[in-house]
């Protein structure tokens, strides 16, 4: 089980990113627990400056804009 955190204050792109993560995980058959982090303090603490950001098992993999589909699958299956 991987813990994925999606950092974002709640803009459209953040919601879209969350969906992308869930879909990619389902497609790859990887069990994930997706957590949405919208508290600005928590976002800043994670070192995310441009949202949406993604961390997987505590490691920040992406910040700013929608993630690339292929890269996202790479991070998830790594």
């Amino acid at each position, binding site marked *: 089980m991987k813990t994925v955190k999606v950092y974002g204050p709640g803009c459209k792109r953040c919601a879209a990113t969350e969906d992308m993560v869930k879909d990619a995980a389902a497609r790859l058959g990887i069990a994930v627990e997706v957590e949405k982090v919208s508290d600005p303090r928590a976002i800043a603490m*994670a070192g995310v*400056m*441009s949202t949406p950001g993604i961390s997987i098992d505590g490691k920040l993999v992406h910040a700013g804009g929608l993630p690339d589909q292929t890269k996202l699958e790479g991070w998830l299956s790594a």
Partner: protein
Amino acid sequence: MSVDITSPPRPARPDWLWHLGVAAFVLGWWLLYGQLVPISEWITAQLPVARHSHTGEAIAFFFYDVPKVMMLLTLIVFAMGVVRSFFSPERTRAVLSGRREGVGNVLAAGLGIVTPFCSCSAVPLFIGFVSAGVPLGVTFSFLIAAPMVNEVALILLFGLVGWKVAAIYLGFGLAIAILAGFVIGKLHLEGWLQDWVRDIHSGANTAGILDEEHLTLVDRYRLGLEAVREIFARVWVWIILGIAMGALIHGYVPQDLMVRIMGAGTWWSVPAAVLMGIPMYTNAAGVIPIVEALLGKGAALGTVLAFMMSVIALSLPEMIILRQVLTLRLIAVFIGVVASGILGVGFLFNLIF
């Protein structure tokens, strides 16, 4: 914005096809752009209204401006998307951290133009900057310049009003961002941040991500296209509304009334324009067609610029977002300093022109 997340990865096109496509697009754009006046006149002629009536004027204005603005936006947002792929908030922060005030303010305002920034990430960006040792005033220079002097504002001004006004806007927008940030820095208001922001030390643990150094030119084209898609999804309504509003002003508002209310001879029009602009929330794309129409009707340049800067730089929603990190007192100082700068520019221009 609709994100089609179920589509399979696109088959890779060869690089030369991308370069060719971009070149063909720019050429086609150029040819079409030259034909916009005849096209708008033709459309207006098809409608059962007299060309030089109020309605005819308004309609011709609308059908000329909508495609013109859309075309300019497409080209410039694409180009800026490519340019911005060379910048990132992380890199900008690295450039600004530890900078002295003065030079730092100038750099921050300049970087504010090219660094990708969306007001929805204003808070994490603010914290990221401040916690990495970017001085408060320098951070503010960035936060003022980023929305105010953006490519959409500049290009629309260039296309609709002329290059001189666009250059003036660029110069004075940067000047306000630099000076306002400098003043805020000199006031030493670090104590007026929310308590938790001062205590935070978000380590720059962004290491190991953002391998953007390896982007190819084609990757950057893709980012440019993505920017076009995103900006359009966000602003097309504002553009249509703004142009419709501009068209009404163009067609119906009598010239002498506008000169009386917004002309250079009316001293209170500048502060009134700034005050009106603060609660108004639109972006450059919506406000510039209005600016164009107001200028055409004899409104004074300083008054109109003040209105536009106020609408774009001082927005209520952004203040509400920033309230999470700034105390109300600091927000009040921020609004006060920026509004004074805008007032100054407004009065100065009404005096000169």
